[in-house]
Protein backbone atom coordinates (compact mmCIF):
# COMPACT_ATOMS: atom_id res chain seq x y z
CA UNK A 1 0.00 0.00 0.00
CA UNK A 2 1.20 3.47 -0.82
CA UNK A 3 1.66 5.78 2.12
CA UNK A 4 0.71 9.38 1.73
CA UNK A 5 2.12 12.14 3.85
CA UNK A 6 -0.81 13.99 5.47
CA UNK A 7 -1.33 17.47 4.17
CA UNK A 8 -0.85 19.17 7.52
CA UNK A 9 2.73 17.86 7.73
CA UNK A 10 3.48 19.10 4.22
CA UNK A 11 2.20 22.55 5.16
CA UNK A 12 4.23 22.59 8.37
CA UNK A 13 7.34 21.33 6.53
CA UNK A 14 7.07 24.01 3.86
CA UNK A 15 6.59 26.67 6.50
CA UNK A 16 9.79 25.67 8.24
CA UNK A 17 12.08 24.96 5.28
CA UNK A 18 10.59 27.17 2.56
CA UNK A 19 8.27 26.50 -0.37
CA UNK A 20 10.81 24.57 -2.47
CA UNK A 21 11.81 22.18 0.32
CA UNK A 22 12.58 18.58 -0.63
CA UNK A 23 9.40 16.62 -0.08
CA UNK A 24 11.19 13.30 -0.50
CA UNK A 25 13.10 14.10 2.67
CA UNK A 26 9.80 14.70 4.45
CA UNK A 27 8.44 11.38 3.20
CA UNK A 28 11.51 9.61 4.60
CA UNK A 29 11.05 11.24 8.01
CA UNK A 30 7.33 10.46 7.95
CA UNK A 31 7.86 6.80 7.09
CA UNK A 32 10.43 6.46 9.85
CA UNK A 33 7.91 7.79 12.37
CA UNK A 34 5.18 5.32 11.42
CA UNK A 35 4.43 2.31 13.60
CA UNK A 36 6.21 -0.69 12.12
CA UNK A 37 4.16 -3.80 11.27
CA UNK A 38 4.11 -6.26 14.15
CA UNK A 39 4.62 -3.63 16.83
CA UNK A 40 2.78 -4.61 20.04
CA UNK A 41 0.71 -1.43 20.14
CA UNK A 42 -1.85 -2.83 22.58
CA UNK A 43 0.73 -3.49 25.27
CA UNK A 44 2.22 -0.03 24.80
CA UNK A 45 -1.24 1.56 25.08
CA UNK A 46 -1.97 -0.41 28.24
CA UNK A 47 1.35 0.62 29.78
CA UNK A 48 0.92 4.25 28.82
CA UNK A 49 -2.47 4.56 30.47
CA UNK A 50 -1.68 2.17 33.32
CA UNK A 51 1.44 4.04 34.38
CA UNK A 52 -0.31 7.40 34.34
CA UNK A 53 -3.28 6.12 36.32
CA UNK A 54 -1.03 5.13 39.25
CA UNK A 55 -0.72 8.86 39.83
CA UNK A 56 -4.45 9.28 40.27
CA UNK A 57 -5.87 9.58 43.72
CA UNK A 58 -7.66 6.43 44.70
CA UNK A 59 -10.30 8.14 46.74
CA UNK A 60 -12.68 10.65 45.21
CA UNK A 61 -13.07 13.92 47.00
CA UNK A 62 -15.77 13.86 49.63
CA UNK A 63 -18.35 16.44 48.65
CA UNK A 64 -21.23 15.77 51.02
CA UNK A 65 -23.22 18.83 51.96
CA UNK A 66 -22.10 20.85 49.00
CA UNK A 67 -24.62 22.03 46.47
CA UNK A 68 -22.26 21.01 43.66
CA UNK A 69 -23.25 17.90 41.75
CA UNK A 70 -21.04 15.03 42.81
CA UNK A 71 -19.63 13.15 39.84
CA UNK A 72 -17.25 10.22 39.73
CA UNK A 73 -13.75 11.36 38.77
CA UNK A 74 -10.21 10.03 38.88
CA UNK A 75 -9.42 6.35 38.91
CA UNK A 76 -12.96 5.10 39.71
CA UNK A 77 -14.22 6.91 36.62
CA UNK A 78 -11.47 5.41 34.44
CA UNK A 79 -12.30 1.92 35.70
CA UNK A 80 -15.97 2.62 35.03
CA UNK A 81 -15.26 3.60 31.41
CA UNK A 82 -12.88 0.76 30.59
CA UNK A 83 -15.17 -1.84 32.16
CA UNK A 84 -18.10 -0.45 30.13
CA UNK A 85 -20.20 -0.44 33.28
CA UNK A 86 -23.96 -0.35 32.99
CA UNK A 87 -25.95 1.90 35.37
CA UNK A 88 -23.09 4.10 36.49
CA UNK A 89 -23.54 5.66 39.95
CA UNK A 90 -23.39 9.32 38.87
CA UNK A 91 -24.94 9.78 35.42
CA UNK A 92 -25.65 13.28 34.21
CA UNK A 93 -26.62 15.17 31.06
CA UNK A 94 -25.38 18.57 29.99
CA UNK A 95 -28.45 19.99 28.31
CA UNK A 96 -27.86 22.84 25.89
CA UNK A 97 -30.93 24.81 24.85
CA UNK A 98 -32.01 26.36 21.60
CA UNK A 99 -31.22 30.06 21.29
CA UNK A 100 -34.76 31.11 22.23
CA UNK A 101 -34.52 29.37 25.60
CA UNK A 102 -30.84 29.77 26.39
CA UNK A 103 -31.02 33.58 26.33
CA UNK A 104 -33.80 34.10 28.88
CA UNK A 105 -33.44 32.98 32.45
CA UNK A 106 -37.17 32.53 33.02
CA UNK A 107 -37.64 30.25 30.05
CA UNK A 108 -34.56 28.21 30.88
CA UNK A 109 -35.52 27.73 34.51
CA UNK A 110 -39.11 26.91 33.53
CA UNK A 111 -37.70 24.19 31.28
CA UNK A 112 -35.46 22.93 34.10
CA UNK A 113 -38.52 22.60 36.33
CA UNK A 114 -40.42 20.88 33.57
CA UNK A 115 -37.95 18.03 33.18
CA UNK A 116 -37.50 17.17 36.87
CA UNK A 117 -39.34 13.96 37.55
CA UNK A 118 -42.11 14.20 40.14
CA UNK A 119 -43.64 11.02 41.44
CA UNK A 120 -46.64 10.53 43.72
CA UNK A 121 -44.10 9.78 46.43
CA UNK A 122 -42.89 13.39 46.32
CA UNK A 123 -46.30 14.89 47.10
CA UNK A 124 -47.52 12.49 49.80
CA UNK A 125 -46.76 12.98 53.48
CA UNK A 126 -47.98 9.58 54.71
CA UNK A 127 -50.07 6.58 53.76
CA UNK A 128 -52.05 3.84 55.45
CA UNK A 129 -52.90 0.37 54.18
CA UNK A 130 -56.03 -1.28 55.48
CA UNK A 131 -56.34 -4.92 54.39
CA UNK A 132 -59.93 -5.34 55.59
CA UNK A 133 -61.28 -2.56 53.35
CA UNK A 134 -58.72 -3.43 50.67
CA UNK A 135 -57.89 0.22 50.66
CA UNK A 136 -54.78 2.43 50.64
CA UNK A 137 -55.05 6.04 51.81
CA UNK A 138 -52.45 8.55 50.68
CA UNK A 139 -52.28 11.86 52.54
CA UNK A 140 -51.35 14.48 49.95
CA UNK A 141 -49.32 17.54 50.90
CA UNK A 142 -51.54 20.39 49.66
CA UNK A 143 -48.78 23.03 49.84
CA UNK A 144 -46.43 21.00 47.70
CA UNK A 145 -49.27 20.28 45.32
CA UNK A 146 -49.95 23.98 44.93
CA UNK A 147 -46.24 24.72 44.44
CA UNK A 148 -46.01 22.27 41.57
CA UNK A 149 -49.35 23.47 40.21
CA UNK A 150 -51.25 20.20 40.06
CA UNK A 151 -54.83 19.41 40.95
CA UNK A 152 -56.12 16.21 42.52
CA UNK A 153 -57.99 15.44 39.32
CA UNK A 154 -54.77 15.38 37.32
CA UNK A 155 -53.23 12.94 39.75
CA UNK A 156 -56.21 10.63 39.50
CA UNK A 157 -56.05 10.76 35.72
CA UNK A 158 -52.47 9.46 35.92
CA UNK A 159 -53.77 6.45 37.86
CA UNK A 160 -56.59 5.72 35.44
CA UNK A 161 -54.59 3.11 33.54
CA UNK A 162 -54.45 0.84 36.61
CA UNK A 163 -57.34 -1.45 37.45
CA UNK A 164 -58.28 0.31 40.66
CA UNK A 165 -60.97 2.67 41.84
CA UNK A 166 -59.82 6.03 43.12
CA UNK A 167 -61.58 8.79 44.99
CA UNK A 168 -60.70 12.01 46.79
CA UNK A 169 -61.71 12.95 50.32
CA UNK A 170 -60.31 16.30 51.43
CA UNK A 171 -56.55 16.04 51.16
CA UNK A 172 -56.71 12.27 51.10
CA UNK A 173 -56.42 10.06 48.05
CA UNK A 174 -58.30 6.79 48.49
CA UNK A 175 -57.35 3.80 46.40
CA UNK A 176 -59.44 0.63 46.52
CA UNK A 177 -58.40 -2.60 44.87
CA UNK A 178 -61.12 -5.25 45.08
CA UNK A 179 -58.95 -7.96 43.56
CA UNK A 180 -56.25 -7.71 46.23
CA UNK A 181 -56.48 -10.87 48.32
CA UNK A 182 -53.79 -10.21 50.94
CA UNK A 183 -51.62 -7.51 52.47
CA UNK A 184 -48.64 -8.37 50.28
CA UNK A 185 -50.55 -7.50 47.14
CA UNK A 186 -51.69 -4.20 48.62
CA UNK A 187 -48.12 -3.30 49.58
CA UNK A 188 -46.97 -4.16 46.07
CA UNK A 189 -49.72 -1.94 44.68
CA UNK A 190 -48.64 0.88 46.98
CA UNK A 191 -45.04 0.62 45.76
CA UNK A 192 -46.31 0.79 42.21
CA UNK A 193 -48.51 3.82 42.80
CA UNK A 194 -45.78 5.70 44.67
CA UNK A 195 -43.53 5.46 41.61
CA UNK A 196 -46.12 6.75 39.16
CA UNK A 197 -44.72 9.66 37.20
CA UNK A 198 -46.87 12.78 37.41
CA UNK A 199 -44.67 15.13 35.46
CA UNK A 200 -41.14 15.46 34.12
CA UNK A 201 -38.79 13.04 32.42
CA UNK A 202 -38.37 9.65 34.13
CA UNK A 203 -34.84 9.27 35.49
CA UNK A 204 -34.05 12.95 35.96
CA UNK A 205 -33.98 13.62 39.69
CA UNK A 206 -32.48 17.12 39.71
CA UNK A 207 -31.75 19.87 37.22
CA UNK A 208 -29.40 22.75 37.88
CA UNK A 209 -29.30 25.93 35.86
CA UNK A 210 -25.87 27.18 34.77
CA UNK A 211 -24.65 30.14 32.77
CA UNK A 212 -21.68 30.09 30.44
CA UNK A 213 -19.30 32.95 29.61
CA UNK A 214 -21.44 34.23 26.75
CA UNK A 215 -24.45 34.46 29.01
CA UNK A 216 -26.26 31.43 27.62
CA UNK A 217 -28.06 29.24 30.09
CA UNK A 218 -27.54 25.49 30.13
CA UNK A 219 -28.77 22.76 32.45
CA UNK A 220 -26.91 20.02 34.25
CA UNK A 221 -29.02 17.13 35.50
CA UNK A 222 -28.60 14.35 38.00
CA UNK A 223 -29.83 11.15 36.44
CA UNK A 224 -30.12 10.52 32.75
CA UNK A 225 -32.65 9.78 30.05
CA UNK A 226 -31.01 10.96 26.85
CA UNK A 227 -33.57 9.48 24.47
CA UNK A 228 -36.43 11.47 26.03
CA UNK A 229 -34.44 14.68 26.49
CA UNK A 230 -33.28 14.77 22.86
CA UNK A 231 -36.89 14.48 21.68
CA UNK A 232 -37.85 17.74 23.37
CA UNK A 233 -38.01 20.74 21.07
CA UNK A 234 -36.30 23.13 23.51
CA UNK A 235 -33.10 21.08 23.46
CA UNK A 236 -30.17 21.73 21.12
CA UNK A 237 -29.62 18.21 19.73
CA UNK A 238 -26.19 19.01 18.35
CA UNK A 239 -24.53 19.70 21.71
CA UNK A 240 -26.46 17.73 24.31
CA UNK A 241 -24.82 14.49 25.50
CA UNK A 242 -24.83 12.38 28.65
CA UNK A 243 -21.83 10.78 30.33
CA UNK A 244 -23.27 7.24 30.23
CA UNK A 245 -21.40 5.42 27.45
CA UNK A 246 -23.78 2.47 27.22
CA UNK A 247 -26.76 4.82 26.97
CA UNK A 248 -25.07 6.90 24.27
CA UNK A 249 -24.30 3.75 22.28
CA UNK A 250 -28.00 2.90 22.35
CA UNK A 251 -29.32 6.36 21.54
CA UNK A 252 -26.66 7.80 19.23
CA UNK A 253 -24.89 4.68 17.97
CA UNK A 254 -21.61 2.89 18.39
CA UNK A 255 -19.51 5.57 16.68
CA UNK A 256 -20.82 8.23 19.07
CA UNK A 257 -20.02 5.93 21.99
CA UNK A 258 -16.46 5.55 20.71
CA UNK A 259 -16.06 9.31 20.54
CA UNK A 260 -17.50 9.66 24.03
CA UNK A 261 -15.04 7.10 25.44
CA UNK A 262 -12.15 9.12 24.03
CA UNK A 263 -13.59 12.37 25.32
CA UNK A 264 -14.28 11.04 28.80
CA UNK A 265 -10.90 9.30 29.22
CA UNK A 266 -9.05 12.36 28.06
CA UNK A 267 -11.17 14.62 30.25
CA UNK A 268 -10.63 12.45 33.32
CA UNK A 269 -6.87 12.34 32.80
CA UNK A 270 -6.62 16.04 32.02
CA UNK A 271 -8.59 16.90 35.14
CA UNK A 272 -5.79 15.53 37.30
CA UNK A 273 -3.08 17.03 35.11
CA UNK A 274 -1.93 13.93 33.25
CA UNK A 275 -1.18 13.77 29.54
CA UNK A 276 -1.39 10.51 27.65
CA UNK A 277 -0.92 10.43 23.88
CA UNK A 278 -4.28 10.47 22.11
CA UNK A 279 -3.32 7.52 19.91
CA UNK A 280 -3.30 5.14 22.87
CA UNK A 281 -6.80 6.22 23.84
CA UNK A 282 -8.00 5.90 20.22
CA UNK A 283 -6.69 2.34 20.06
CA UNK A 284 -8.45 1.28 23.25
CA UNK A 285 -11.71 2.96 22.23
CA UNK A 286 -11.59 1.27 18.81
CA UNK A 287 -10.91 -2.12 20.39
CA UNK A 288 -13.83 -1.67 22.78
CA UNK A 289 -16.23 -0.77 19.95
CA UNK A 290 -14.93 -3.25 17.36
CA UNK A 291 -17.89 -5.63 17.18
CA UNK A 292 -20.70 -3.09 17.25
CA UNK A 293 -21.40 -3.11 20.99
CA UNK A 294 -19.37 -1.49 23.73
CA UNK A 295 -17.34 -4.21 25.39
CA UNK A 296 -15.34 -3.62 28.54
CA UNK A 297 -11.75 -4.69 28.97
CA UNK A 298 -11.60 -7.46 31.51
CA UNK A 299 -12.91 -10.86 32.44
CA UNK A 300 -16.39 -10.26 31.07
CA UNK A 301 -15.30 -8.21 28.06
CA UNK A 302 -12.45 -8.33 25.58
CA UNK A 303 -10.14 -10.64 27.53
CA UNK A 304 -12.94 -13.03 28.48
CA UNK A 305 -14.08 -13.47 24.90
CA UNK A 306 -10.68 -14.31 23.41
CA UNK A 307 -10.74 -17.12 20.89
CA UNK A 308 -7.89 -18.97 22.53
CA UNK A 309 -8.48 -21.13 25.62
CA UNK A 310 -4.98 -20.69 26.98
CA UNK A 311 -5.11 -16.91 26.52
CA UNK A 312 -8.30 -16.77 28.57
CA UNK A 313 -6.93 -19.17 31.17
CA UNK A 314 -3.73 -17.17 31.60
CA UNK A 315 -5.72 -14.01 32.30
CA UNK A 316 -8.03 -14.93 35.16
CA UNK A 317 -9.67 -18.01 36.74
CA UNK A 318 -7.60 -20.62 34.81
CA UNK A 319 -9.30 -23.76 36.14
CA UNK A 320 -12.75 -22.67 35.11
CA UNK A 321 -11.62 -22.07 31.55
CA UNK A 322 -9.53 -25.21 31.24
CA UNK A 323 -12.31 -27.45 32.58
CA UNK A 324 -14.88 -25.84 30.31
CA UNK A 325 -12.57 -26.22 27.33
CA UNK A 326 -12.16 -29.92 28.14
CA UNK A 327 -15.91 -30.42 28.52
CA UNK A 328 -16.82 -28.75 25.26
CA UNK A 329 -13.90 -30.01 23.18
CA UNK A 330 -12.49 -26.61 22.36
CA UNK A 331 -9.44 -26.16 20.21
CA UNK A 332 -6.74 -23.52 20.48
CA UNK A 333 -5.51 -21.81 17.31
CA UNK A 334 -2.11 -20.83 18.86
CA UNK A 335 -2.20 -17.50 17.07
CA UNK A 336 -1.83 -15.17 20.03
CA UNK A 337 0.81 -14.05 22.47
CA UNK A 338 -0.26 -15.69 25.72
CA UNK A 339 -0.65 -19.26 24.47
CA UNK A 340 2.67 -19.16 22.63
CA UNK A 341 4.44 -18.02 25.79
CA UNK A 342 2.77 -20.81 27.78
CA UNK A 343 3.94 -23.40 25.26
CA UNK A 344 7.43 -21.88 24.82
CA UNK A 345 7.14 -20.79 21.20
CA UNK A 346 7.98 -17.63 19.29
CA UNK A 347 5.28 -15.02 19.92
CA UNK A 348 3.67 -13.42 16.86
CA UNK A 349 4.96 -9.93 17.63
CA UNK A 350 7.53 -7.90 15.72
CA UNK A 351 9.92 -10.15 13.76
CA UNK A 352 8.21 -13.21 15.23
CA UNK A 353 5.18 -12.51 13.04
CA UNK A 354 7.08 -12.92 9.79
CA UNK A 355 6.95 -16.41 8.35
CA UNK A 356 9.40 -17.80 5.86
CA UNK A 357 7.71 -18.77 2.63
CA UNK A 358 9.59 -21.03 0.22
CA UNK A 359 8.20 -21.79 -3.20
CA UNK A 360 7.95 -25.45 -4.03
CA UNK A 361 10.03 -25.22 -7.19
CA UNK A 362 12.03 -22.17 -6.26
CA UNK A 363 11.04 -20.40 -9.50
CA UNK A 364 8.49 -17.78 -10.42
CA UNK A 365 6.59 -15.36 -8.26
CA UNK A 366 2.98 -15.90 -9.31
CA UNK A 367 0.79 -18.94 -9.38
CA UNK A 368 0.38 -18.92 -13.13
CA UNK A 369 4.04 -19.45 -13.94
CA UNK A 370 4.51 -22.07 -11.21
CA UNK A 371 1.56 -23.99 -12.65
CA UNK A 372 3.22 -24.01 -16.03
CA UNK A 373 6.42 -25.34 -14.54
CA UNK A 374 4.60 -28.29 -13.06
CA UNK A 375 3.12 -29.25 -16.38
CA UNK A 376 6.50 -29.47 -17.99
Amino acid at each position, binding site marked *: *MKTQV*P*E*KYIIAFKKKYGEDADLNELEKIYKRSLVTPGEAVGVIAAQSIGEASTQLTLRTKHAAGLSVINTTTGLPRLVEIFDAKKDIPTPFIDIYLNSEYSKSKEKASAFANKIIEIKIEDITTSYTVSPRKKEIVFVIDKDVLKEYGFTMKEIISHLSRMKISTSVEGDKLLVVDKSASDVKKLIRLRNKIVNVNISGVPGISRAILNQDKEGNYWIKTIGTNL*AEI*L*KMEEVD*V*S*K*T*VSNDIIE*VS*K*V*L*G*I*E*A*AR*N*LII*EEVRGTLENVGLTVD*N*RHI*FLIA*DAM*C*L*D*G*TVRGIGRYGLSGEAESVLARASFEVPFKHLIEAGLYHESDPFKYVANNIVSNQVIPVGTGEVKLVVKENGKGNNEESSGEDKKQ
Partner: protein
Amino acid sequence: MDIDIFKNRLSPQYKIMQKEEVDKLLEEYNVSLKDLPKIKLNDPAVKQLNANEGDVIEINRKSATAGEYNYYRVVVK
Protein backbone atom coordinates in the same frame (compact mmCIF):
# COMPACT_ATOMS: atom_id res chain seq x y z
CA MET B 1 -37.70 7.93 16.54
CA ASP B 2 -37.76 11.58 15.54
CA ILE B 3 -34.31 12.65 16.65
CA ASP B 4 -31.79 13.39 13.94
CA ILE B 5 -28.77 11.78 15.61
CA PHE B 6 -26.43 12.85 12.81
CA LYS B 7 -26.75 16.40 14.09
CA ASN B 8 -25.14 15.49 17.41
CA ARG B 9 -21.56 16.53 17.89
CA LEU B 10 -20.51 12.96 18.75
CA SER B 11 -21.80 11.56 15.47
CA PRO B 12 -19.36 11.34 12.55
CA GLN B 13 -20.35 11.44 8.85
CA TYR B 14 -21.87 8.18 7.62
CA LYS B 15 -22.28 6.90 4.07
CA ILE B 16 -23.45 3.58 2.64
CA MET B 17 -20.83 2.32 0.18
CA GLN B 18 -21.62 1.12 -3.36
CA LYS B 19 -20.79 -2.44 -4.37
CA GLU B 20 -17.82 -1.38 -6.54
CA GLU B 21 -16.41 0.78 -3.76
CA VAL B 22 -16.57 -2.15 -1.34
CA ASP B 23 -14.74 -4.44 -3.77
CA LYS B 24 -12.06 -1.81 -4.26
CA LEU B 25 -11.70 -1.34 -0.52
CA LEU B 26 -11.38 -5.04 0.22
CA GLU B 27 -8.80 -5.42 -2.51
CA GLU B 28 -6.80 -2.42 -1.35
CA TYR B 29 -6.48 -3.68 2.21
CA ASN B 30 -6.39 -7.37 1.20
CA VAL B 31 -9.14 -8.38 3.63
CA SER B 32 -12.49 -10.13 3.43
CA LEU B 33 -15.82 -8.71 4.53
CA LYS B 34 -15.84 -10.53 7.86
CA ASP B 35 -12.50 -8.97 8.85
CA LEU B 36 -13.97 -5.47 8.93
CA PRO B 37 -15.14 -3.88 12.19
CA LYS B 38 -18.84 -4.40 12.74
CA ILE B 39 -21.93 -2.32 13.38
CA LYS B 40 -25.20 -3.79 14.58
CA LEU B 41 -28.33 -3.76 12.44
CA ASN B 42 -30.25 -2.16 15.33
CA ASP B 43 -27.71 0.63 15.77
CA PRO B 44 -29.51 4.01 15.61
CA ALA B 45 -27.15 5.23 12.88
CA VAL B 46 -27.84 2.17 10.71
CA LYS B 47 -31.57 2.65 11.21
CA GLN B 48 -31.38 6.27 10.13
CA LEU B 49 -29.30 5.35 7.08
CA ASN B 50 -31.73 2.55 6.17
CA ALA B 51 -28.83 0.19 5.62
CA ASN B 52 -29.27 -3.57 5.24
CA GLU B 53 -27.32 -6.50 6.61
CA GLY B 54 -24.06 -6.94 4.71
CA ASP B 55 -23.75 -3.30 3.67
CA VAL B 56 -20.46 -1.58 4.34
CA ILE B 57 -20.69 1.85 5.92
CA GLU B 58 -18.00 4.43 5.37
CA ILE B 59 -17.47 6.57 8.44
CA ASN B 60 -15.65 9.84 8.04
CA ARG B 61 -14.01 10.52 11.38
CA LYS B 62 -12.46 13.74 12.50
CA SER B 63 -9.35 13.03 14.48
CA ALA B 64 -7.14 15.22 16.60
CA THR B 65 -4.00 13.54 15.28
CA ALA B 66 -4.76 12.57 11.69
CA GLY B 67 -7.13 15.30 10.57
CA GLU B 68 -9.82 13.38 8.72
CA TYR B 69 -9.86 9.70 7.83
CA ASN B 70 -12.27 6.97 6.82
CA TYR B 71 -13.23 4.00 8.93
CA TYR B 72 -15.32 1.10 7.65
CA ARG B 73 -17.90 -1.03 9.39
CA VAL B 74 -19.93 -3.89 8.00
CA VAL B 75 -23.57 -4.20 9.10
CA VAL B 76 -24.26 -7.41 11.01
CA LYS B 77 -27.21 -8.80 12.93
